[in-house]
């Protein structure tokens, strides 16, 4: 389990190394075919910011070699906004959200129909963390319905046990998205006031449990803005490396959710700038040439346009982050989206930029 590795990492030493190193061979590292972990840390360092242009160019080449000029699309579907956790940065926070909604079967089916009509084939089903109200049985039912409309179904829900994940995998779920939010235990404790999420170890080992249970794909990410991003990304990369070695058949992806707008009484502790976002995405691309990188509609349309092809391979489009959002139910959303272009508009943009949009990249018989 990853928690064993995590507990042995000297995080303050790691943080100090990345932030103070002054290595002069960054250009040589950028040209390498395969990077070591140390190489990767150097690319994350402030010293590498002078080489950002070379990193972007190299990331572009690598992404094209492994993925071609293609962008895959998916859409999130929020099934519920009920959440028992108190996470300071989140609008689903149990304390802030009294507008609870769990989609009924009828509402769920209408969401599926609307999204299928738009052309989506790959969907991510989401809920808050409230297993008593929205538990595994609710999810099994949702997946069994979603299968009739979509070829690929992933989940972003409360962390489950291996046994629960097995049931979901057998029902037809391909992938799991689970963000650690931050690997910085102090910050993790401070921003997660209560609820099941308080248990950092349970969350750290969630990808292990998903792969053990038979999930084919797991998506990781940290919430950019919570802790020092250099340290957090270094630990995220360690997590990815560990999973690649341990579950050699597993596919991994990395997402880049960045805190921009937060509840009124919370200030973003370590905001991440656009240029820093570019540095971390390109550094990760050089280190992990063959894994999918996902960018959601949290980011602005202009930033998303610019990040096309420098590492990002998968995007959402026309997203709603509230349950029933596609049928315009007046429910509370998890966060505000910045890029509200529809799938149709996104397809046109992607094509204009010389990329081929991919809607179906999986078949349920696999």
């Amino acid at each position, binding site marked *: 389990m990853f928690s064993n590795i995590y507990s042995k990492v000297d995080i303050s030493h790691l943080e100090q190394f990345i932030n103070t190193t002054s290595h002069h061979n960054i250009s040589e590292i950028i040209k390498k075919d395969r990077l070591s972990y140390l190489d990767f840390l150097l690319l994350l360092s402030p010293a590498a910011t002078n080489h950002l242009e070379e990193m972007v160019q190299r990331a572009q080449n690598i992404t094209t070699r492994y993925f071609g*000029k293609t962008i895959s699309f998916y859409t999130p579907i929020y099934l519920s906004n009920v959440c028992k956790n108190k996470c300071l940065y989140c609008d689903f926070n149990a304390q802030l959200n009294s507008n609870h909604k769990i989609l009924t079967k009828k509402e769920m089916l209408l969401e599926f129909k609307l999204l299928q009509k738009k052309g989506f084939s790959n969907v991510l089903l989401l809920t808050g963390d409230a297993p008593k109200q929205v538990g595994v049985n609710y999810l099994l039912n949702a997946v069994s319905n979603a299968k009739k409309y979509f070829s690929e179904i992933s989940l972003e829900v409360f962390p489950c046990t291996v046994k629960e994940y097995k049931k979901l995998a057998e029902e037809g779920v391909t992938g799991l998205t689970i963000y650690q939010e931050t690997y910085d235990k102090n910050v993790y404790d401070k921003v997660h006031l209560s609820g099941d999420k308080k248990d950092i170890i349970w969350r750290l080992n969630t990808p292990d449990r998903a792969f053990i249970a038979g999930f084919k794909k797991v998506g990781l990410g940290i919430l950019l803005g919570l802790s020092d991003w250099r340290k957090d990304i270094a630990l995220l990369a360690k997590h990815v490396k560990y999973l690649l070695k341990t579950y050699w058949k597993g596919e991994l992806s990395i997402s880049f959710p960045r805190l921009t707008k937060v509840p009124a009484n919370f200030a973003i502790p370590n905001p991440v700038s656009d240029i820093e976002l570019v540095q971390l995405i390109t550094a990760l691309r050089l280190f992990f040439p063959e894994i999918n990188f996902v960018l959601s509609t949290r980011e602005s349309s202009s930033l998303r346009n610019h990040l096309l092809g420098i590492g990002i391979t998968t995007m959402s489009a026309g997203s709603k982050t509230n349950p029933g959002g596609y049928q315009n139910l007046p429910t509370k959303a998890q966060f505000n989206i910045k890029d509200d272009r529809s799938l149709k508009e996104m397809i046109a943009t992607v094509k204009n930029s010389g990329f081929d949009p991919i809607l179906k990249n999986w078949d349920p018989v696999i």
Partner: protein
Amino acid sequence: MTDFLKIAKKKFSSRLILGTGKFPSKENMEKALAAAETEIVTVALRRVNLDNPSDNLLNFIDPQKYLILPNTSGAKTAEEAIRLARLAQASGISSWIKLEITPEPRYLLPDGEETLKAAEILVKEGFIVLPYINADPILARKLEDIGVATVMPLGSPIGSNKGFKTIEAVNIIIEQASVPVVVDAGLGRPSDAALALELGADAVLVNTAIATANNPTKMAEAFKAAVLAGRLAFKAGLATEKTSAAASSPLEWLSKIQ
């Protein structure tokens, strides 16, 4: 004089098979297929979207012009590959199948054991099976014994553009095979393709090198020319390499002996 590539009793003039992934647009792909003058085009079944015509790769490949060769890309086990093959047949796409079983998603190297298992079942069910394999001469022979239509050893890992790195083992496969040998995967330059044909490979399959070139159409044309040159050289009989200069008639001394 016609020099056909024969696979499962079908004759092809072109010895260049193209993949359809990674192109910057479907239109771009169509042009590259035409420029390559290919006759066999492989399509990932997981990408075939029968529900959405604008996303359906098959709508951009004219079945009158090309033999559509569905592949099982994405399959990690024999069972998954078999299900994909049956799906291709049931939906009327083809009963030819390019067997790709790659359990590890990073290098996408083929799993010989699972490939053999799936090939055995699919051949029995009447499929024309073209398995993607490591350059493993024994596996190639076992597959041939089962009744596959070709063997498709890799030149280097898929998408790597690293070129023809498995040359020694592929030479043995070519020497021993009685089905066509198609060098598949990793060929990064037209010269890699020419080399494979020169050595006696029956055909090559190219995708990434064409699809991700700055100008896929021109690169397709370049591969076409390279494949023709390589084949011609093979037919002409390559002169062997010499380590030192030699008289043009090495037996001249005989006439000088009184």
